[in-house]
């Protein structure tokens, strides 16, 4: 069912055609302006490169301190990359990182030599312990300037972000996993029958769908994602992942991408009992250009980082661990949901609305349609123009032979949400055990130096019937329905000022 009549749709189609033509014209104008800005930026970069070159020369001419990683630490043409990108399974920081490039860096990993008794707890290793670069030697590139420029006005700042046609990926490695994302724009019908213009990312598997393709990457392995924007510049920010700024996907601290760019990062590997390491968990990626609009238009998708497998924490067939020393869960019923809502007015806007100083009303987000995106991760339907909507969840009953169900949630929404688990009568059931937040496990960190066990292993699982969270937060939770039967997941959306409930969706959970 559509909220628009057929007549309305055909008028919309005409309007769309007109808009597209207008957009093309605007786009051409914008590109002309961008080309001019690019010329200026290139000139700035050349000057900056020259300055840096002179600085480097000057630095080289000085005698360098002996402790410097020096030629061997700096990736050089002579660095021999290791062919194996295997995740380090060792809990101990290993100094075995392949190439001589990082040997001296890693060799210093055991940083506790001078530790006092009270502090010896900490400092376990340098972060390089699990990184195994498989470097392809390239000359050291010159980064684009970041925040070195000043602006006369907010309008100038908003409309003059650095756009780069094809930025260079520094020190490209051989990735363990790589994807290519195109931008797409489509009218899509969501699960309440409403149809909106949506923008998102697509690949060959999830063509013109929404949300963007689901990505799963393993800790310790290099990951590449190439974005091919169209209809204006875009970026991909890997929300919660923490690479260098060029790979962080934010225009004003790096660049917006016109042509294409390959983001590169290596999710940090976890170490059992160590709260300072490990990236395994739930994330999402999204465009960071004119962000309020682009994310609302749908330019986001889920990202899951799976842990390295540690010999002390083997994994049962059919199960996975949520983090390196985390609990096992049942792969078959693992699911994800993402609260999302739509303000229809926003879906009539254009790429750069508001950036030139006009009042686009982007401070007013008044959603009328409320959605729970997602479903079972093993069964996301592929194909064209599919909207991944949550209709039902399965969960394994507590105490059964199967591992518990893991439910991941990404808040892809601008309003706060309350999640409540109830039985069929609406009575709250404390069946959710929160195990991670924002890609980091909940741990007992009370004893310096002692292993920081997960909350469940410390004897106080974070069990609840209710979870409050807001924009961009993620939680991972195990479900423990006490008995077979039907339960419900209720999600309420609250006004960001008054806290009044403005929308609700309820999804059945079938426990067997």
């Amino acid at each position: 069912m559509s909220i628009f009549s057929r007549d309305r749709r055909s008028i919309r189609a005409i309007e769309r055609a007109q808009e597209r033509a207008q957009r093309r014209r605007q786009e051409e104008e914008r590109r002309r302006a961008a080309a001019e800005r690019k010329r200026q930026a290139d000139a700035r970069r050349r000057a900056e490169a020259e300055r840096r070159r002179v600085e480097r020369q000057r630095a080289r001419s000085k005698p360098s301190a002996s402790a410097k990683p020096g030629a061997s630490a700096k990736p050089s043409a002579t660095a021999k990359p290791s062919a194996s990108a295997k995740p380090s399974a060792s809990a101990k920081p290993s100094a075995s990182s392949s190439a001589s490039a990082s040997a001296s860096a890693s060799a210093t990993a055991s940083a506790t030599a001078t530790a006092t008794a009270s502090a010896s707890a900490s400092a376990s290793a340098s972060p390089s312990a699990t990184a195994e670069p498989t470097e392809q030697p390239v000359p050291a590139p010159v980064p684009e300037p970041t925040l070195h420029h000043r602006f006369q006005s907010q309008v100038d700042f908003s409309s003059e972000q650095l756009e780069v046609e094809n930025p260079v990926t520094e020190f490209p490695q051989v990735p363990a996993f790589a994807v290519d994302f195109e931008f797409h724009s489509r009218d899509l019908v969501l699960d309440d029958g409403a149809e909106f213009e949506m923008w998102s990312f697509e690949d060959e598997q999830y063509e013109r769908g929404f949300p963007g393709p689901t990505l799963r990457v393993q800790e310790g392995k290099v990951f590449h994602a190439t974005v091919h924007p169209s209809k204006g510049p875009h970026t991909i920010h890997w929300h919660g992942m923490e690479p260098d700024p060029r790979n962080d996907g934010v225009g004003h601290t790096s660049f917006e991408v016109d042509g294409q760019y390959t983001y590169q990062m290596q999710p940090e590997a976890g170490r059992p009992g160590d709260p300072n390491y490990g990236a395994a968990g739930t994330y999402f990626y999204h465009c960071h250009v004119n962000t309020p609009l682009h994310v609302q238009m749908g330019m986001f998708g889920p990202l899951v980082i799976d842990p390295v497998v540690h010999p002390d924490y083997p994994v049962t067939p059919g199960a996975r661990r949520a983090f390196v020393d985390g609990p096992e869960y049942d792969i078959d019923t693992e699911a994800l949901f993402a609260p999302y809502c739509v303000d229809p007015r926003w879906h009539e806007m254009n790429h750069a609305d508001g950036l030139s100083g006009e009042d686009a009303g982007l401070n007013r987000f008044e959603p009328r349609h409320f959605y729970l995106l997602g479903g079972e991760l093993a069964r996301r339907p592929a194909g064209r123009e599919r909207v991944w909507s949550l209709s039902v969840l399965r969960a394994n009953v507590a105490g059964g032979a199967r591992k518990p169900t893991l439910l991941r949630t990404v808040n892809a929404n601008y309003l706060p949400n309350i999640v409540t688990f109830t039985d069929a009568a609406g009575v709250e059931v404390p069946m959710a055990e929160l195990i991670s937040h924002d890609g980091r496990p909940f741990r007992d960190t009370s004893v310096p130096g002692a292993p920081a066990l997960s909350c469940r292993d410390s004897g106080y699982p974070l069990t609840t019937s209710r979870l409050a969270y807001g924009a961009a937060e993620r939680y991972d939770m195990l479900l423990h329905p006490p008995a077979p039967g039907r339960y419900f997941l209720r999600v309420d959306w609250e006004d960001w000022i008054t806290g009044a409930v403005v929308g609700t969706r309820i999804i059945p959970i079938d426990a067997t």
Partner: protein
Amino acid sequence: MAEQLPPEILARSDLLKLGAAAGLGFAALPLVQPSAPRSRVARMPIPLALAPLPGVLDLYINEGYLKMVDDTLVYHRGFGSRPTDIDDPTPSLRLDPTVITVAGDVVPGRSYPLGAPLPPRGTPTPLRADSANPGQYVIHRNYWASYFPQRTIVAELGSTVRLRVQNRLGKPHTLTVHGAGADGGDLTTGSIAPDSVALLEFDCPKPGTYIFTDPTNAPVERVLGLFGVLVVMDPECQWDIAKDRASFERQWVWICHTVEPRWASMEAAGQTVDPLQTRAVPRYFTLNGRSGFESLGVTFDDGINLATEEETLISGYPRQLDVRQFGEGTELGTLRGGQLVRLVNAGIVLHQMHFHGNHIWTVRRNNVDWPRREGFVGDDGHVVLQQWEDVVELEPMDRKDIIIPIKRPPDAIDPVWFARTTDWVYPMHCHAEPSQTAAGGMYPGGLVAHWTLKGPVPGAAP
């Protein structure tokens, strides 16, 4: 027991006797006999500045127009440091930062601890390179001062806080320090009539972060700008959140606020906003009073840029740390810890503070320490346990203390990290994205900041 303060001669020749004001007490003393409520424009003459009193911090409830990031002027009220009128081109609507010492001194100044070295452009420089961890540095402990933004009072534990508040406006106003009472309740001047002065005197509460506001017709007067922050420090632990709590290299106070120009213009016109009748539609979102490119320090105004770097834009050198213990480093005088950020939401929208580059470690909410063990999920659905987050939920009137580690971004590949020659700059922004706008657009023109992982120090041995 009421404390009798000495009589005070005001410049306008009205004799003001300051009355009982000890503990929770207050005095609201009219400078002139109150008559029927008068409109703002009819009120004459404007009272002049109060003569200073030792050990007393004077605040003036002023009105005026403040320039937003798009140069729009919006009517504001505020607790200022000097008396100004509505037509003043530089109205005093944001208290200048002030330190109240345990010795009873009221010291105007932007930094604390008093006498500690000021970090250059806000950035604490490290002790030396960390030979055990290439690319990282050993950090000074108990060394650097911190800069504080406008609207901040720093009071030392053990001090007596004396706030003398002059209401220069046409309607009654109040100053209330929320949650600072001995029982955790509010401390308030009570209603201060137009042209009157009140004294609020109280024993400094326990170390923490407190908001003071005018709760009249809440939240309207707060939205108009009548708010500030009281930071309480233990003078014996000037680089710790509190005794036996997390140590930090330096601290930052981030005060979030929302500006509602429709409400402002209604109040400027003499109307009283009914917040239920006229729904708030915030149009500007500020951090320490600035938005967008001003909050990021990329203007052509060197003064704004420098103040922003000193007060708001977190920066530091990468270091090795362990969240299990923010304390003494591997040798005396060094710190194994990060920097403290006091997140304060004096506005009316729920913020979702997202840090790029490093997860942050949340240690307390509203001056209540979160445990490191035996955490739980509260009835409201929030986890009560110290934890890593990359988005910190900040409800209106909430305060959260977080430690930003300032460490190597964990997912950067080794070759890029070891080839680093420059600063790495990471955004911080609210992820409730409408707050990223100014005047309905101009992304990123709202509540934004960034933090800088400083680049290698030339010549420092790695």
